């Protein structure tokens, strides 16, 4: 915090040479109060305020209402150097461009001091011309940047209108699971488990191979046997199934033949020839 009261100095006095380094309550502060502690990092803020030596020079010229086309080079150089000295006294790693510009200013200043060539000789170009051209060119783009910044833009003046299209964002609502539903699900699992027990296939006590031998024996006794007679109904469902599987297996192995004399007529089984 700036607690030190700085006397009001008006820029019109003309005698002041150092650039204001800050504004305090609307008044420019041109020199640092002696008892003011400035943390080293804070000075980056001062330097950051200028986008380089051209920006700083432009500031000095505009600040003092100087004509950019007829820069009083001695005055500007003095102010520029005062600023650089201030920064260098407090911050060591001043950007090299600032120092390079100081050299340019010093060179122009010295050339301005040289006597003009006598009339009739080739008129020498204004040593300031190149600097003025650069300053003007820089100022154009500095203004252009402000122009772009002032354009209405997204995220600030303009927001695109978006309507959500729900079908494209598939979001299925999670079903609410009640206790009753949970109970029903549990009962279903229990029923399924029971069915599983009932339908569990245990090892067949009557082997198909065994029955195949039996069938062949029957056919050896009676070569022409009715299909139905190969089954023993009192063996139950399982016995019937095993007998049928045995007949099919024998057929596949071409050991028996199944014949039918007429459509819908009785089926007979006989041993293969």
């Amino acid at each position, binding site marked *: 915090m700036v607690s030190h009261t700085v006397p009001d100095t008006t820029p019109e006095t003309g005698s002041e040479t150092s650039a204001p380094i800050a504004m305090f309550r609307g008044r420019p502060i041109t020199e640092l109060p002696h008892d003011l502690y400035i943390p080293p990092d804070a000075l980056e803020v001062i330097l950051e305020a200028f986008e380089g030596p051209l920006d700083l020079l432009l500031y000095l010229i505009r600040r003092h209402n100087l004509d950019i086309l007829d820069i009083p080079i001695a005055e500007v150089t003095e102010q520029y150097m005062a600023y650089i000295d201030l920064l260098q006294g407090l911050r060591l790693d001043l950007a090299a461009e600032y120092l390079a510009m100081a050299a340019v200013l010093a060179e122009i200043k010295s050339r301005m001091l040289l006597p003009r060539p006598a009339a009739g000789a080739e008129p020498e170009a204004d040593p300031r011309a190149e600097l003025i051209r650069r300053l003007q060119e820089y100022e154009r783009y*500095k203004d252009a940047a402000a122009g*772009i910044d002032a354009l209405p833009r997204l*995220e600030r003046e303009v927001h695109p209108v978006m309507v959500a299209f729900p079908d494209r964002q598939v979001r299925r609502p999670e079903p609410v699971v009640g206790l009753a539903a949970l109970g029903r699900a549990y009962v279903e699992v229990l029923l399924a488990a029971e069915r599983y027990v009932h339908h569990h296939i245990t090892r067949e006590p009557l082997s198909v191979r065994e029955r195949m031998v039996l069938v062949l024996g029957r056919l050896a006794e009676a070569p022409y046997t009715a299909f139905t007679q190969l089954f023993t109904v009192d063996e139950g469902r399982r016995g019937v199934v095993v007998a049928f599987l045995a007949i099919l297996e024998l057929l596949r192995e071409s050991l028996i033949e199944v014949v039918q004399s007429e459509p819908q007529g009785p089926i007979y089984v006989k041993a293969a020839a």
Partner: protein
Amino acid sequence: MSPEEIKPIIEAALMVAGEPLGVDRLAALFGEDDGIHAEVEQALATLREDYAERGIELREVAQGFRFQTRPGLAPWLNRLWEEKPPRYSHALLETLAIIAYRQPVTRGDIEDLRGVVLGTGMLKTLLEREWIRVVGHREVPGRPAVYATTPKFLDYFNLRTLSELPPLPETLPIEAPEEVAPSAPAAAQGEMELPDVVVGEVAEG
């Protein structure tokens, strides 16, 4: 399809698309009919009038048409969000301005103009935002990359073409400054340093 049928489809498409839609993409919604382009353009013109008095406007930017809030409403609308709108540094805006008005330019061109070395990440930031892109390399030693702005840059700044950028301020001639005063404002309005070729090329891609 009749214009009455086309208009609501275009209106809805622009709202749900999530990005600006050009006439070609809008026409593609209606198949291959001859003359559909003209009908789409007619519908867009009618829509623009329909929204003339609303808080939303139909605006054409580089990549097509989009519905957007009216710029004048921003002071109220921005209260909807806690974050402030993003601000961009002078350095970034100056760099962007030089690329926009002088494209195609190299990093060296930008540094010459600004009189400072570009901070690390400056161009990277602009590239990442897709406001600029590398459009080639200059055939000089080092083959530096040449940068130009993108349609996305124009979209962001609410522009249709580069020619809609504010005119680049004219400089006063160094010689004979006393003659400039009366004629300068007129000259400053008309001229802009943007070759038409560059404008067309950038708007296309």
